[in-house]
């Protein structure tokens, strides 16, 4: 394959645009969460900076960047500074395989609204989510603090456990679509989104991504009541900011994947495809915030029981039933 100048310019344009969308989306998701949580808790939330508080993310970034960057004396300096990046980068990289909409005509050629259509797309996502574990683990270990270490050990075991049920819940989707490529999975849902055939897999995937995001009710790695702030207790300034932004980028990317795997991605009637995609991702983000505002935190043994003794066997059973159904059809 030879690349012309137009191809390279288009690719660069797509990457820059995607970065802009992700970072703006994550910044405004923080604001949306604060406002919605305020509404749930019967208070106002941030509304002072700019009209309706819309400039609040900008003010937050300025605050983070100008704060003092503290590194504990006993910390492992190299790993301490590496860990926030290792938490944020896999979350951003996931967007490389996400198709945002139907192919469009641009400069007389067909442009896919996707950076790369890997034929092992689903596995690429699984690989990145297993790499994301290192940010949590190394951040807590390198801080050399007992709260941080406890938080990262919890985070590590939680992420490993729920990765399993997440991966297994995607197997029926791959079986139905007969492909591991995300573009093919979206195309296979042209007639009917997979949530209709696979409600159980969707439920397992949804619970697992809540746990992968380490949010309430699965926020044991950072449980503020017992562990101060868990694995990022010792972080300050923009390094903390990277962990924080990484979490919100993760919400957007996992929400996008849930809508791709089960809700038909950018497919939908009347409205343009890209808009449909953003509506679905927005709904998932809202669900994440809603859950955070309403559910209490699980106890640690409950968390492990739910993952290993309920979700994983259920996902395996679901694969068996799906295979049976596909063979008999």
């Amino acid at each position, binding site marked *: 394959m030879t690349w012309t100048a137009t191809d390279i310019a288009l690719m660069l344009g797509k990457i820059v645009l995607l970065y802009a969308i992700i970072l703006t989306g994550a910044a405004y998701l923080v604001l949306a969460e604060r406002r919605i949580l305020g509404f749930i808790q019967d208070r106002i939330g941030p509304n002072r900076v700019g009209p309706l508080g819309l400039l609040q993310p900008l003010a937050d970034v300025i605050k983070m960047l100008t704060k003092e960057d503290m590194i504990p004396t006993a910390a492992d300096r190299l790993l301490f500074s590496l860990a926030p990046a290792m938490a944020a980068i896999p979350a951003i990289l996931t967007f490389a395989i996400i198709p945002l909409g139907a192919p469009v005509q641009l400069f007389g050629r067909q442009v896919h609204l996707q950076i790369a259509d890997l034929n*092992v797309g689903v*596995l690429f996502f699984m690989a990145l989510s297993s*790499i994301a574990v*290192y940010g949590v683990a190394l951040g807590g*270990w*390198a801080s050399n603090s007992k709260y941080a270490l406890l938080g990262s050990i919890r985070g590590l075991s939680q992420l*490993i456990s729920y990765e399993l049920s997440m991966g297994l819940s995607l197997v029926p989707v791959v079986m139905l679509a007969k*492909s591991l490529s995300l573009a093919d999975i979206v195309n296979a849902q042209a007639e009917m989104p997979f949530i209709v055939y696979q409600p159980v897999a969707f439920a397992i995937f949804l619970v697992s991504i809540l746990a992968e995001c380490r949010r309430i009710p699965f926020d044991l790695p950072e449980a503020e009541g017992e562990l101060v702030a868990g694995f990022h207790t010792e972080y300050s300034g923009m390094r903390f900011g990277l962990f924080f932004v990484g979490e919100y980028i993760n919400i957007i990317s996992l929400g996008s994947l849930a809508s791709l795997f089960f809700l038909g991605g950018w497919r939908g009637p009347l409205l343009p495809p890209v808009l449909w995609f953003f509506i679905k991702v927005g709904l998932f983000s809202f669900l994440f915030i809603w859950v955070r505002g309403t559910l209490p935190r699980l106890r640690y043994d409950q968390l492990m029981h739910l993952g290993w003794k309920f979700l994983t066997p259920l996902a395996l059973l679901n694969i068996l039933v799906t295979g049976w159904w596909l063979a008999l059809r």
Partner: protein
Amino acid sequence: MEATLFYILAAVLLTGTLLAITARQAVRSIVYLVTSFFALALMFYLLGAPLIAAFEVIIYAGAIMVLFLFVIMMLELESPEKLPQPHFTNWLPALLLAGAVVGSLVVLLCSRLRAVPPGFVEIPVRQFAFALFKQYGVAVEVVSMQLLFALVGALYLGRRR
């Protein structure tokens, strides 16, 4: 293009592995080893085996090394212990094996066989699956039985206490 990428990846791979065996702290050497696994995965991708590349990251970097990391974090090695210098007789097998590897490398380099990369031909997942489960189906089943035996054995050894 492919050749340039290959040499960059090879450099990362060798540096990562070298740092992994020379690092004084176990956690750091895990990070270096994960880096070299990543470079290795990209190399597999370059050779047209995206499935192997994905499994390399999921299994080696994402599962096995995380398990190692978990154990090391639990052990809490404050300072690396000073071990006595290994005796010559302990070195001998390692030297022999290394000599065999280096020797075969020299033979390969001297021979007229040139390792030409096949260019970027992506093997579809379907073809890979047919080869694995149809062509070599029996072998795969035997290997998986062996893994099951190892699993049961480990469980037995762990339960005995």
